[in-house]
């Protein structure tokens, strides 16, 4: 008989499912005219569930090793919860539009269920749980990308996402089937013992890495990214670029470190090439974008390249730098997307040239956008610098100095296009700038949270040391 208290290891997932069911029931009981009440109700309910799941539980495994709960996965799930809460707060203005009134509940329920899938993926202990979690996370997202039913771009983005994510999971699964054939197990710990550099395992690993490359949009598997990001509603784009990508990066790191530990030299070579390609191509394509969503899409591709540099420094330093970077990346990117979605909802502007002269009319929004862009570029006092610094440190501890040099050059190139947006907001003249507007309160609060985090998180050294202390459980 299973001890009942072990079920508490799944408290994040179970609470999220409970929240989703309560939102559906509340939706059923609400009149059509009063559906807007769902927005604050769902946000407060989700925030409550997030606070409850902070409650610490002793580490352990469930279902014979299929589900692992420890301090590192709990911390990462808390980051994901916080990111989704910020996304919810930023989508208030969008959901209050007349055409979305019928579908408010679906928006919250589908997003929460994708998070459930990601949580299962993050704490998976075998490839079956990993695969089911991955699909639970990616199938509803296609529906959310096509959420604007009457816009053809949204429909196009949805179709592109579902077909390519199905193809990528097919490729990934083919690799997993070869690894299963060579090792005879689907559990991470059993596979790790039997991994050798045999041709079958190398072929399987390459298919697996290509499949994961689609999910975290590495070059040359990145072509879907900009189209899907452009077609999706702004807050879904933010969710795709932060939460979805962050969870996939985390589990990729764990699988590389734990399962493919015996062929570390092999995957380091592959990641070396992918990191250089991803940083460079992402940066070069970002320069020529004028749509703010496509711009942030290519900037997020370039950031994925920097994350790969961090993965190269294996061991607990690598793991810590990845989790720390994702924590900072959540606030950075959601800050930028928050400002972009505030401007889009108020005036319909989503081009960079439309931002000309924004500082004259909306100085506070421009300042937050500037902070976020400086953090993405990695300029010292802002948090993004510390995230990049620790990732380069992690790669440097293994002696990849040429890779770090290329990374620093790319960070310099990226400064050019981030500053182009800052220049548009602060220096460029415009006869008809976006007029002054006041955003909904939830959005203002989320932007305040992001900017406080961006300024102070780099100086709170305790966070990095806490992640360092919990990531030792892996090794």
């Amino acid at each position, binding site marked *: 008989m299973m001890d009942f208290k072990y079920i508490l290891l799944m408290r994040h997932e179970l609470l999220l499912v409970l929240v989703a069911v309560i939102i559906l029931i509340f939706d059923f009981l609400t009149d059509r005219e009063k559906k807007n009440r769902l927005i604050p109700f769902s946000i407060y309910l989700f925030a409550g569930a997030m606070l409850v799941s902070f409650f610490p539980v002793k580490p352990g495994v469930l279902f014979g090793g299929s589900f692992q709960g420890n301090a590192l996965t709990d911390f990462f799930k808390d980051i994901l919860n916080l990111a989704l809460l910020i996304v919810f707060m930023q989508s208030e203005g969008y959901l209050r539009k007349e055409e979305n009134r019928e579908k408010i509940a679906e928006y919250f329920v589908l997003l929460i269920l994708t998070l459930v899938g990601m949580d299962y993926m993050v704490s998976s202990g075998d*490839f*079956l749980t990993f*695969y*089911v979690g991955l*699909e639970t996370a990616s*199938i*509803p997202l*296609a*529906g959310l990308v*096509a959420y604007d*039913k009457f816009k*053809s*771009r949204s*429909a*196009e*983005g*949805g*179709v*592109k996402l*579902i*077909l390519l994510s*199905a*193809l990528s*999971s*097919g*490729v990934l*699964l*083919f690799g*997993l*089937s*070869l690894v*299963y*054939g060579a090792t*005879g*197990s*689907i559990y991470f710990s059993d596979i790790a013992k039997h991994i050798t550099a045999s041709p079958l395992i190398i072929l399987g690993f390459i298919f697996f890495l290509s499949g994961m490359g689609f999910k975290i949009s590495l070059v040359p598997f990145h072509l879907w990214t*900009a*189209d899907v990001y*452009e*077609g999706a509603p702004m807050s879904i784009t933010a969710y795709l670029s932060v939460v979805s990508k962050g969870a996939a990066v985390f589990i990729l790191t764990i699988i590389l470190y734990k399962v493919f530990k015996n062929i570390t030299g092999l995957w380091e070579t592959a990641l070396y090439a992918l990191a250089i390609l991803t940083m460079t191509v992402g940066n070069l*394509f970002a320069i020529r974008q004028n749509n703010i969503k496509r711009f942030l899409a290519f900037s997020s591709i370039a950031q994925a390249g920097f994350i790969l540099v961090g993965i190269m420094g294996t061991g607990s330093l690598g793991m810590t730098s990845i989790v720390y970077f994702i924590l900072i990346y959540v606030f950075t990117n959601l800050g930028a997307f928050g400002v972009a979605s505030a401007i889009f909802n108020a005036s319909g502007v989503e081009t960079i040239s439309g931002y000309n002269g924004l500082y004259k009319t909306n100085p506070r929004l421009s300042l937050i956008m500037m902070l976020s862009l400086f953090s993405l570029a990695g300029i010292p006092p802002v948090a993004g610098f510390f995230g990049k610094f620790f990732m380069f440190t992690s790669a440097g501890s293994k002696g990849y100095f040429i890779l770090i040099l290329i990374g620093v050059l790319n960070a310099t190139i990226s400064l050019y296009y981030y500053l182009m947006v800052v220049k548009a907001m602060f220096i460029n003249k415009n006869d008809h700038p976006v007029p002054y507007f006041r955003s909904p309160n939830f959005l203002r609060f989320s932007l305040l949270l992001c900017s406080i985090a961006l300024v102070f998180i780099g100086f709170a050294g305790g966070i990095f040391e806490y992640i360092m202390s919990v990531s030792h459980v892996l090794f």
Partner: protein
Amino acid sequence: MIQGISIYHFLIVSTLMFFIGIAGFIIRQNLITILLSVELILNSVVINFLVFNRYLYPDQLQGHFFALFIIGVAAAEASVAIALIINIYRRIHNIESDNVNEMKY
């Protein structure tokens, strides 16, 4: 295990199916046919799992379970994809991928 048919025969068939699926995904224009190609890829994976389990590790069931889950998830994926393709059809009365190219580069 089937007498007279070795594991290589099954693996050749499944690998061929996989690459036919990839080729179909790239070459075909019709969105439904592209979806069919993806299904071909997933089915080749199912064959792989079953054959490896039956021939190499006959005392376990992990491959069989994996195959069952793939079939279930593939059904969910196909239903969502078809819903989105119908959504496209309502917009442009056509499901050729050449006509779904409003966004590029």
